[in-house]
């Protein structure tokens, strides 16, 4: 199967200035990542704040151009697309944002919020658009009567439903959702997770799902990629990565999650210290200063993201010694 979306050695750097007389420095938010997203699959991208996962979303939606590297959609390179091809891309790749309070214009009625993408992409006439808006509201579990209301008249969960309806308006093929349930209360979170799953199943969409919550990640993803300091450190199927991690950072992340099930509580592998600055990343493996297994070589040589078992890749010099020794 050919991938729907491919990212190849994607890099995004931003210039930062420390102060008035300080030297200009470079912040590398995304430090060369490769991604493939296949039709109908959900790829979960996880990592802690500042790891670059939201920058990846902005790059893939074309909201920010990459510093280097390429993005291909159905084999065509984004940077070389014609204006009309780009318009088509923007229609087929839609985004759902984290904060349902700041991502809806408070001065627009729901009918305008959902109608605007239809207008921009010249879909239907006024009456047709109205019907489509009503259909969308029903689709996401709201009622057509809500059409004339403003965002402030809705709860957080309802607003996130409107955000999802807006993404669905132009019949996309891929939805990039950046932390779509993190701002919601527990009982509402489950409703939105169910809605996203229904939408995916009924419409056959592909999803790139960005989250820091590994239990949500496990629930929604087919494949998983774990990011650390601008790089993917591990990728594979959901069960591979979350049940048999091959990177010490994935292990630390998994063991840091407090669990309700006493059976699931493993020994706590606590990552020491904090995330290093992306302005001055550590030499060698970016995780080595915090890694409980680090050896001298880890500070000298950056490990490549290599396939360790079929379908599962990890960027660690010692995956075999640490994680694979028993299975051999």
């Amino acid at each position, binding site marked *: 199967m050919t991938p729907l979306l491919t990212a190849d050695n994607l890099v995004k750097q931003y210039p930062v200035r420390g102060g008035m007389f300080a030297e200009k420095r470079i912040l590398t938010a995304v430090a060369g990542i490769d991604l493939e997203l296949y039709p109908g699959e959900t790829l979960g991208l996880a990592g*802690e*704040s500042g790891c670059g996962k939201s920058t990846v979303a902005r790059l893939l939606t074309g909201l920010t151009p990459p510093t280097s590297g390429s993005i291909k959609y159905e084999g065509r390179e984004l940077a070389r697309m014609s204006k009309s091809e780009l318009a088509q891309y923007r229609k087929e790749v839609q985004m759902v944002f984290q904060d349902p309070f700041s991502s809806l214009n408070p001065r627009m009625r729901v009918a305008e919020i959902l109608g605007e993408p239809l207008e921009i992409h010249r879909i239907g006439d006024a009456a047709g658009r109205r019907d489509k808006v009503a259909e969308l509201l029903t689709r996401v579990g709201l009622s057509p009567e809500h059409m004339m209301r403003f965002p402030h008249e809705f*709860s957080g969960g309802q607003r996130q439903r409107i955000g999802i309806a807006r993404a669905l308006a132009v019949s996309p093929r891929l939805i990039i959702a950046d932390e779509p349930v993190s701002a919601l*209360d*527990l*009982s509402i*979170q*489950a*409703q939105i*997770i*169910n809605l996203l*799953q229904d939408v995916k199943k009924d419409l056959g969409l592909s999803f790139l799902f960005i989250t*820091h*919550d*590994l*239990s*949500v990640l*496990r*629930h*929604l*993803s087919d494949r998983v990629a774990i990011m650390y300091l601008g790089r993917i450190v591990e990728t594979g199927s*959901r069960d591979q990565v979350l049940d048999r991690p091959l990177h010490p950072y994935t292990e*630390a*992340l998994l*063991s*840091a*999650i*407090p*669990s*309700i*099930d*006493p059976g*699931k*509580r493993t020994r*706590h592998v*606590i*990552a020491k210290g*904090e*995330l290093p600055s992306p302005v001055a990343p550590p030499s060698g493996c970016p995780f080595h200063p*915090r890694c409980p297994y680090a050896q001298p070589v880890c500070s000298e040589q950056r490990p490549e993201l290599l396939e360790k078992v079929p379908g599962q890749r990890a960027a660690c010099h010692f995956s075999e010694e640490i994680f694979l020794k028993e299975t051999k």
Partner: protein
Amino acid sequence: MPALLEITGLRTEFRLKTGVLKAVRGVDLTVEPGETLALVGESGCGKSITAASVLRLVPPPGRIVAGSIRFKGEDLLALSEERMREIRGNRIAMVFQDPMTSLNPVFTVGFQVAEGLRIHRGLSAQAAEREAVELLTQVGIPAAKDRVKDYPHQLSGGMRQRVMIAMALACGPELVIADEPTTALDVTIQAQILELLDRLMAEKRMGLILITHNLGIVAERAHRTAIMYAGEIVESAPTAELFENPLHPYTKGLLASLPEFGTPGEKLATFAGGVPDLRGDLAGCPFRERCPIGDDACERETIAMREVAPGHLVRCRKVS
């Protein structure tokens, strides 16, 4: 001996133009020395207002209208404001959720940690600063001697939360109230902060009220857990008992809706509807409209907390 903290029949209300919002509607809670009590619920359930009531820091137009809050037998609600100030930040301390907005941006962190020591213990500026360095070292801030001169914006989120904890612990409080202390932090940093709190609580035999919506944290850290819904405690029990044998339909629903318990790809359990308007008439059970087992009588009867197993209390008529 009286409990470290005993709250009985606490009611806190907000007089709004649109009506009286009953945020806390008759809460009973007890905390013993060395005990961690988790107070769990979704936004708007009244957990933070309960905490604010203990410190008598309910923001206007909010007001405590009934109940008593006894701290080692002494009724905090009967104290003069001056006496209350001697307790606040000294014997009862608070850790807030967002260290960015709860630290003062224009003072160094050393000054802020030392402030409580100067006010409550009458230490000189130099002695207080030395003590602040000691406290910041205890909460795991490296090179604390240099860090005391930093302003909050120069520290990371995890470090700022450590500063908040150092401030709370400065005067050796007997009770700490932590309102979502790790919600703004990443999981690997959250794990570090929770380990720290655990260690300090055990060492100093402090009582801790841990307010959170993260049930995983509760399951791992709290001795007892109270679940709040619409201003009331609907269930409370020793933590292990609560998670093994949840009885209130709300607690059960909350646990069932967690992705951790779902099968990947399958639907999660949800409940329909939303929380009732706390300004309205709140006769009967506030959960009845969303409840899978409720009946007509739940709408009328006032439902009391009942002890159904040792230490396991539930506010539901349908639970036998």
